């Protein structure tokens, strides 16, 4: 295995005509940790990764692997493994697909069955990729990244299209790769998708950096709130109004924008309202994530980006 190398993005900008996809972005990804690269769809994640891998030219700034641009790496596939989209020539088998690029990169043929076994595709090695499901394509993409046993892995939305079992598997797999000292960068538009497996996060929105650092620092983002319920919701609402508290209806009661349940209880006591429930709720990670990236991202469906499945021959 090659050594883990930090990924360094410095002042990176990319404009497509009038559209600024990435805007003066800087962050570092450390070896030995899984880093989540997060942001809503269209935030510029994929563009950033494509610039990093030399597929898209930067308008300004740099994106390097320990100071070396991708195209200047002496043995790119053995330094960096990257999976950007699950597109393949449908007429090739899984084994042939990998063998072609092993030849191009000068990687021994024995790695092909080895990586297919690692991603759990060995029984489909001789099958044409055209008949693969999205989950199998994702696994084949991952197999491609592992061909050169690289110290750095860059994966764009690797969880898309995986079944629950596959998701569980890939989380553990990414963790084990990082434990071996590799640099692992995983993009996702859903924090909840990766929160169990990432150590660090880099959050971007509209091409700009919002936050980067260990996942634990993210939790300060949104304050906890208080849930309060009463057999007489109308009087409770009046009491909350009286105390000047902001609240919203939630389930049988109200969600109050107040971290201290004592103050909410006091307001109810002053109003002479009987309470059936009163407790604090911690803000979910996804909530603080969404509040960080702003409404630009939380709107619309946190859907699955279109991925071509099937595809015709030739």
């Amino acid at each position: 295995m090659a050594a883990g190398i930090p990924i360094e993005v410095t002042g990176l900008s990319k404009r497509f005509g009038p559209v600024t996809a990435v805007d003066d972005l800087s962050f570092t990804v450390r070896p030995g940790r899984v880093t989540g690269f997060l942001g809503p769809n269209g935030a510029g994640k994929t563009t950033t990764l494509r610039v990093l891998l030399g597929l898209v030219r930067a308008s300004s700034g740099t994106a390097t692997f320990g100071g070396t641009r991708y195209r200047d790496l002496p043995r790119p596939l053995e330094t960096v493994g990257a999976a950007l989209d699950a597109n393949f020539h449908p007429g090739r088998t899984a084994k042939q697909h990998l063998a072609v690029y092993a030849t191009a990169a000068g990687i021994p043929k024995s790695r092909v069955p080895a990586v297919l076994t690692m991603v759990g595709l060995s029984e489909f090695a001789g099958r044409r990729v055209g008949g693969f499901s999205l989950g199998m394509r994702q696994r084949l993409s991952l197999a491609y990244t592992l061909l050169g046993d690289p110290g750095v892995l860059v994966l764009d939305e690797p969880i898309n299209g995986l079944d629950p079992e596959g998701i569980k598997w890939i989380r553990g797999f990414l963790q084990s790769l990082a434990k071996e000292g590799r640099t692992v960068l995983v993009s996702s538009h859903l924090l909840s998708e990766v929160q169990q497996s990432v150590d660090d996060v880099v959050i971007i929105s509209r091409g700009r950096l919002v936050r980067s650092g260990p996942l634990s620092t993210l939790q300060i983002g949104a304050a906890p709130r208080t849930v309060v319920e009463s057999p007489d919701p109308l009087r409770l609402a009046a009491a909350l109004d009286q105390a000047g508290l902001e609240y919203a209806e939630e389930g049988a009661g109200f969600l109050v924008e107040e971290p201290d349940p004592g103050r909410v209880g006091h307001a109810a006591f002053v109003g002479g309202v009987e309470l059936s429930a009163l407790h604090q709720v911690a803000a979910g990670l996804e909530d603080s994530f969404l509040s960080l990236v702003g409404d630009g991202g939380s709107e619309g469906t946190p859907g699955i980006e279109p991925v071509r499945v099937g595809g015709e021959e030739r």
Partner: protein
Amino acid sequence: MTVFRSIAAEFQKVFTTRMWWLLAILLVVYVLFLAGGFGAFLGWAVENPDAAENVGNTQLPPGIQLGPLLYSFASSIGYVFPVLLGALAVTGEFRHKTLTPTFLAVPHRSVVLGSKYVSELVLGAGFGVIAFATSVAGGAAALSAFGLETGLDDSDTWALIGRGVLAMALWATIGVGLGALVPNQVAAIVIVLAFTQFVEPILRLGASLNDVTAQIGQYLPGAASDALVGASFYTIASVGSSETLDWWQGGLVLLAIGAVATIIGGATTWRRDVT
């Protein structure tokens, strides 16, 4: 070292998909049908000159060598197949979005395109060998069935075959250049078929009617290819002036078209962002 690995990978890409042998089979069927069929017709026409006179005014030019004429069908008819093979090698990468893994494995794009150029040159020559094997087998069988000279004991015939194989190799590089200029696969195929089957034959016929245009017409790729090979059914089909380039000039014209198209494509569409 990187370059040789990249060339090997390009060969592997071709041989791990079905397109190359589908095209090869079509090439064989097409050339066999035309070379064998036309050979049989010529044999019959020579044997029955009076009857042939009544069939559409067929008058063979005196002293023409039937063997080389029939054998040249391999390139004068079959050249569309190496062009398609070369074009598909490039456009397929765009169509199936395999440029991403390709450029990740070999980040220097000019190395990839150069590898395609070299590998298609070799594969085009392979198509040439297949095509001429077919036309010689079919044509010679038809000729000898009517007791006519096959010309296979003549070294000039074999020189013609060798030049024909070279022409087929150069046609494949023209396909690579076209694919680099027109990455849309459907558009590239339509251009190949329309140009080779329709536009160029008409241009050649039209150009041959006038001495001035005939000078220009000989630089058309099909005309240059026939000049390189040294025989073509055009030489008996053409009306008016049938001026052609020297064989080496024809070869240089083909080489230049393929190389220039590849270089221009490589500097434009091939360098675009892969998104």
